[in-house]
């Protein structure tokens, strides 16, 4: 688990970046967000948490499911005495965020899903080959740089600091446990829990709908998930949740918070600002809020 500066005002934002640990050719975790966190922290409480197998998160035992990942987030919120947070999620964490929005809506002030193929409907399920052949040795500095550069729009978004942090993470207990878990077939079982989590979201969306405001951020040049897929996710979510936004960022890849941190910052913060102003800015404060 990692945490960070907490400012004594506003609802905190919790940033979660995760991929399939032990399988994906780069080590995920809070280090991937990069300098954009400093931008958020300049004006609002902003924290990070690493999921099991990622970054400095817990070790993975014999089994791991999507439910375990969601539970790890709740544990972190409890440990930090955080009631509600704005969740900002990337990649696999997007689906974790959806589970939390379904099961623990009282803990989620809003959910932002960024470039998440995991949360989006799979469509025809064509294999994505973007990260098919990472250079050996895997999870080395060069191999991880290769992965990051294939995911970003510009190689300039991938600095030595990121690669060094990812390399350091690869030697950590979480990643090493993920490697053992993946080699023993754990990842295959995990994917079944992914399918179940997505099905639960679709069931929720076609029924009562999410009670948590949600926004989806797509990009024009994401090698892992198209804007069309994420627009489909938005359309599914918005059918049951009025307070929902969708955005497309131009000339960004799978890591838009690195390709264009300023635009990413303004899209995330404007949604959170607007929601918070809606709760305080009504003409008739009182009864209407109970509707």
């Amino acid at each position, binding site marked *: 688990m990692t945490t960070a500066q907490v400012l004594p005002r506003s609802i905190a934002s919790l940033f979660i970046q995760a991929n399939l640990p032990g399988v994906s050719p780069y080590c995920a975790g809070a280090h991937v967000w990069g300098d954009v966190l400093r931008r958020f922290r300049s004006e609002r409480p902003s924290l990070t948490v690493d999921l099991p197998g990622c970054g400095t998160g817990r070790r993975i035992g014999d089994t791991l499911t999507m439910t375990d990942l969601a539970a790890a987030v709740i544990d972190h919120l409890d440990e930090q005495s955080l009631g509600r947070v704005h969740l900002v999620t990337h990649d696999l964490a997007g689906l974790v965020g959806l589970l939390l929005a379904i099961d623990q809506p009282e803990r989620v002030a809003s959910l932002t899903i960024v470039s998440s193929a995991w949360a989006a409907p799979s469509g025809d399920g064509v294999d994505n080959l973007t990260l098919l052949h990472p250079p050996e040795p895997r999870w080395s500095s060069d191999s991880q740089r290769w992965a990051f550069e294939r995911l970003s729009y510009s190689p300039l978004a991938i600095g030595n600091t990121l690669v060094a942090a990812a390399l350091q993470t690869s030697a950590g207990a979480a990643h090493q446990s993920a490697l053992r878990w993946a080699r023993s077939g754990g990842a295959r079982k995990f994917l079944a829990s992914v399918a179940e989590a997505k099905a639960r979201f679709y069931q929720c969306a076609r029924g009562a709908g999410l009670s948590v405001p949600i926004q989806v951020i797509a990009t024009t040049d994401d090698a892992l998930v198209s804007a069309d897929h994420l627009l489909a996710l938005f359309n599914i979510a918005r*059918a049951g*949740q009025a307070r929902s936004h969708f955005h497309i960022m*131009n000339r960004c890849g799978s890591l838009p918070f690195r390709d264009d941190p300023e635009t990413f910052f303004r*899209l995330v913060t404007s949604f959170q600002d607007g929601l918070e102003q809606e709760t305080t800015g009504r003409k008739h404060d009182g009864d209407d809020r109970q509707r």
Partner: protein
Amino acid sequence: MNQETARASDWAEGLPPPRNIDVNGVQTRYYDQGTGPETIVLIYGGNFGSADSASSAFVWSRNILELAKHHRVIAFDKLGQGHTAPPIRNADYTMAAVVAHAIALIERLDLSPFHVVGHSRGGFAAARIALEISQRVRSLTICSSGTLCPGVGLNEVVLAMPPFPKGSRDAARWAYQTYCARPDHVTEEWVDAIMEVLALPQYQVGVKKFSDELLGNSLFAPQLSRMKRETLQWIADGRLQRPTQIVWGANDKTVQIERGLALFEMIRAHERRTTFSIINDAGHFTFREHPQRFNALLHRFIESCRSPQ
């Protein structure tokens, strides 16, 4: 659907005192609130001559005061709309004259480089301003502009044959409720403002020009068509070179999302700082239907255009 968001009637309406200025012989009403350092110019939609949907700067009544906490905000009544006088010559019942009037007002007010925000037909005017006097424009925000984007507009389909007498309060309310995602997004204050404009003799001059003298079909529409073709060509050529934010309502029946996406694709090809945003539970009037989130989106965009990119 989870609609914990408030009804539109929950949000306060508010406008600063109006001002008047002579712009090349046209008495023009406008609002000017806030001190900046950045200046925002708001341009609403519609056009002169419309008998049921008389737009005016009132439509920004949920945006001006909030945005003016951080910026200088100018919202004006366009040529022949709201409380601004109609064109002096028949030949000026055109979109080109509307844009020329807007630019003349901007020059008359001697505005420092500004951020232009346009809705619907106003989105077209805003884009023309960004193209024609780009040296004075810092950024462009386009809201639900079927006039600007490629594709087929559905206004005439959606708003065909109002079930109420032409020019009546019920007809006006019905038109705007049709534009919006939900009927309760249209407040009685908004309908009051529409009816006030419809009752103005100077507004009725334009209505008669369109209905009796047929200037709408014989002059305004064909000129706009030619101007749109030129504008889209300019955009395709890469002449639009300012940060551009496109905001659409997910439930806009008159200008569907696909057309906004097509516009985004055209602009983004040449301008890196282009974003496309959809607000759910919003029809054609995102900035009125969900003002807090729209204002936050616009404010943050303006702020981002101030800082080095």
